[in-house]
């Protein structure tokens, strides 16, 4: 790195002008470290965040989300809306217009045919496209002229920004991927590793699961950008080592997603080489309550199905008491520090969609005890566990294996036992827990436990699909191979009716109002979901790297074209 440092110094000395006015490539080299190493440069073949974000430096969508969740055009002239006529009145089609004069990094023009091809690539039935959900409900994608594309949906789509919007859905070059459709997708190693893009950088060397070398794209649309001539995108190791490389040794300029204990991060930042930056998105660590009976005495195929309601968790008072007993602020302090905020919401962001629900934030052990007492749960046999009609309040609490989650389990167990709920803990390896193998009894979908804890979020800024997961009938069950997203087996006709209304509403304020109501039905009105922590993203940047705007709504590297070197 010595020669690089020297190069950097030289570059910095030459380019003494303010960074914003710098020429392309004038700021030399930048080092980025992701402790999960990218495997492929295509979000369509891998859903992994590391791959999506690495690819976002090279291939771009028509529009992106900013750090506040607003939509901004990238390859498109403007974001189509009903007001500007880009979205049809009946909400069944959206028309995108490309900026004129865009070039791929190989010098050929970007046309609507590339956009049409991108849709064809991802919607191919044999391709196994990871972003298939983005193209859900798309009937046709047609080129109107060289720069205009119309996406037609099978029905009204109030939020038509699935395809071509955000880091998950960038435009790929038709010429390069022409032979890579469907079952051929994996055989196009060259195209998958060295995609031709429109972004600020292009790949010069790709070593899967190790390192990517990039250089400034000579055909990038802004002639003054990017400020950096070359990039090293290193992967591998662990979050602590990545943080150390930026904050303590200064070898790297940017480290992604530092899931570290708050005190560890603090002591690293004290070295003064850089700073930890954080931003909040939609990721919520929560406890999901099983409304069905997971008892092992039931025959296989009937456990945790709607045929058998849970003996006591179907009682609102019990769920509410479990929530009241938790001190969320303490959990944040222990587990996440600046990367977490206590929350009572399933949808904590964006601000417009967030309910002002804060009633769970204060722990109330006495209140929880009184509530259980009132509901008839009393400890008659003196074993410290409450019971009613001979049913003991005893829960099995499972989650994935992870240091912070086990800390949370231990604390929450202590609080629950204090209010007379016996708690048994269990943790399962993440690859099994989230693996979705229908043959395994340990997946979060099967939910062979009374409560379970994990985190989930939604893409983009609109929670419709996320909230629709809790539709009646969408629960994992034997008939669907235990696939399904309604983990709690929640069922409320009123909720489903509101969901339908949301799917028909286009005005954003009205949508927000409905979404807030749906969120409250799941949280403060029914405690089906017990939200704990709104988990932010913490990354680190070196003191000499400018222009970084941490964004949780899109790729973290969404504005890498604007990054520059701060002298000194």
């Amino acid at each position, binding site marked *: *790195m*010595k*020669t690089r440092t020297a190069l950097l110094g030289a570059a910095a000395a030459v380019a003494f002008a303010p960074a914003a006015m710098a020429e392309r490539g004038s700021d030399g080299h930048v080092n980025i*470290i992701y402790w999960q*190493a990218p*495997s*492929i440069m295509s979000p369509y073949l*891998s*859903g*992994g*965040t590391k791959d999506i974000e690495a690819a976002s430096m090279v291939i771009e969508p028509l529009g992106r989300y900013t750090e506040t969740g607003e939509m901004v055009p990238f390859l498109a002239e403007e974001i189509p809306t009903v007001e500007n006529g880009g979205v049809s009145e009946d909400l069944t089609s959206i028309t995108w217009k490309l900026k004129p004069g865009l070039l791929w990094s190989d010098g050929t023009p970007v046309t609507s045919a590339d956009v049409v091809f991108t849709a064809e690539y991802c919607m191919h*039935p*044999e*391709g*196994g*496209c*990871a*972003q*298939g*959900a983005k193209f859900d409900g798309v009937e046709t994608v047609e080129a109107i002229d060289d720069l205009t594309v119309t996406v037609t949906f099978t029905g009204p789509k109030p939020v038509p920004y699935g395809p071509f919007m955000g880091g998950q859905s960038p435009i790929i070059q038709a010429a390069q991927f022409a032979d890579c459709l469907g*079952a051929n*997708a*994996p*055989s*196009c*190693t060259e195209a*998958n*590793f060295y995609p031709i893009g429109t972004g600020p950088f292009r790949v010069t*060397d790709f*070593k*899967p*699961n*190790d*390192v990517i*070398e990039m250089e400034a794209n000579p055909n990038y649309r802004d002639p003054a950008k990017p400020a950096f001539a070359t990039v*090293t995108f*290193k*992967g*591998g*190791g*662990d979050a602590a*080592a990545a943080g150390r*490389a930026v904050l*303590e*040794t200064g*070898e*790297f300029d940017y480290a992604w997603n530092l899931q570290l204990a708050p005190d560890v991060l603090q002591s690293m930042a004290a*070295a003064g080489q850089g700073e930890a930056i954080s931003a909040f998105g939609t990721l919520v660590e929560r406890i999901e309550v099983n409304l069905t009976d997971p008892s092992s005495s039931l025959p296989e195929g009937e456990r945790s199905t709607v045929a058998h309601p849970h003996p006591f968790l179907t009682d609102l008072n019990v769920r509410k008491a479990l929530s009241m007993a938790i001190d969320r602020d303490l959990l944040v302090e222990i587990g996440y520090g600046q990367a977490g905020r206590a929350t009572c919401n399933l949808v904590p962001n964006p601000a417009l969609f967030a309910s002002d629900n804060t009633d769970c934030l204060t722990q109330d052990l006495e209140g929880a005890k009184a509530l259980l007492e009132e509901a008839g749960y009393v400890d008659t046999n003196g074993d410290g566990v409450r019971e009613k009609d001979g049913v003991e309040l005893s829960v099995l609490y499972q989650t994935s294996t992870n240091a912070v989650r086990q800390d949370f389990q231990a604390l929450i167990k202590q609080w629950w036992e204090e209010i007379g709920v016996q708690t048994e803990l269990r943790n399962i*390896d*993440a*690859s099994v827990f*989230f*693996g*979705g*193998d229908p043959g395994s009894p340990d997946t979060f979908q099967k939910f062979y436990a009374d409560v379970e804890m*994990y985190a989930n*979020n939604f*893409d983009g800024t609109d929670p419709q699909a996320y909230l629709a997961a809790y539709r009646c009938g969408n629960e994992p069950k034997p008939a669907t191979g235990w*696939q*399904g997203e309604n983990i709690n087996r929640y069922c409320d006709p009123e909720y489903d009716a509101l969901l339908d209304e949301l799917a028909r509403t286009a005005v954003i304020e009205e949508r927000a109002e409905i979404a807030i109501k749906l969120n409250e039905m799941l949280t403060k009105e029914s405690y089906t979901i017990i939200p704990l922590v709104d988990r932010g993203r913490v990354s680190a940047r070196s003191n000499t790297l400018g222009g970084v705007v941490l964004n949780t709504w899109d790729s973290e590297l969404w504005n890498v074209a604007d990054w520059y070197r701060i002298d000194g």
Partner: protein
Amino acid sequence: MLQYTVRRLVIAIPTLLLISLVIFLLLELAPGDPMAQMPLTIPPEVRQQMREALGLGDPTYIRFGKWLWQFFVVEPLHLLDIVFGTSFAEGQQRVISWQTRSPVMDIVAQRIPQTLWVVGVAYIVAILIALPIGIYSAYRQYSWFDQAGTFVTMVGFSVPPFFSGVLVIVIFSVTLGWFPSIYDTTHSVTDWDSFVYQLRQMFLPVMVLALQITSQLSRFMRSSMLDNLNQDYVRTARAKGLSERVVVLVHVLRNSLIPVVTVIALGVPSIFGGAIITEQVFKVNGIGQLLITAIYANDLPMVQTLVFIFAILIVLFNLIADVLYGILDPRIRYD
């Protein structure tokens, strides 16, 4: 000897086939899912399509058969193509990694140099240090040198690399700033300066690895020397009036090296296997790191192929060790 070698090689074939089946079935039975690391925002139907695109829809025996064909036929043909510029393997499906959708062997070939540089150098350094220490410790048994050596080797043997690795990073990278903490795999040696940089970036991982290997080898060397030092032939050599130097370095050392050479040969496959933890700590990203990330991602073709390559190497070097034994020790005859 030749006959013995050929016989062993022939026996190795069914052994390896059996090993490959066992590995395949173990991976098959192990819980896990290649989609587990994908974000939960990807809906289940899409996950199912992705699994099918990976070939997970086929029954086990078909997938095993495909893998056998790809590994034993397509990959060697592909290698032939590269060497001789032919096109036997054109259009044939190679062993494809699920994570990267690219041929496993290409990635392995890319990773081998890193691993050989770091782990291989560590192995050589360790041998160079361990042998003299072992010899002198045995010759001066219970001297302060022996005691100190025993202490250091015990510490080196017991301290795990995830501790010693981070410790040397904190000392030499963070506090003193002498060596980089992250290995630059894109670095290529072109001149003196870049060679010096390569040495600097290798220093810490090699140190951590060599400490461990030295500890094991020097204990072996010491005990093997001790076994020989009390033998009758040593007394005879001394009685003949040979100098201590000749007695120890010629007579005793040569005889003591026989088991040590075997141990060294048996350890060679571990060089190719990489050092999972040390590679992770220093981001060397060699074979070890490749294996562990593949395991995390449930990338079965990658894990299967890597583990099987290790199996081949282990079988092969076992054979080499046995043959070496016969060559070095004339008392041992296989025929």
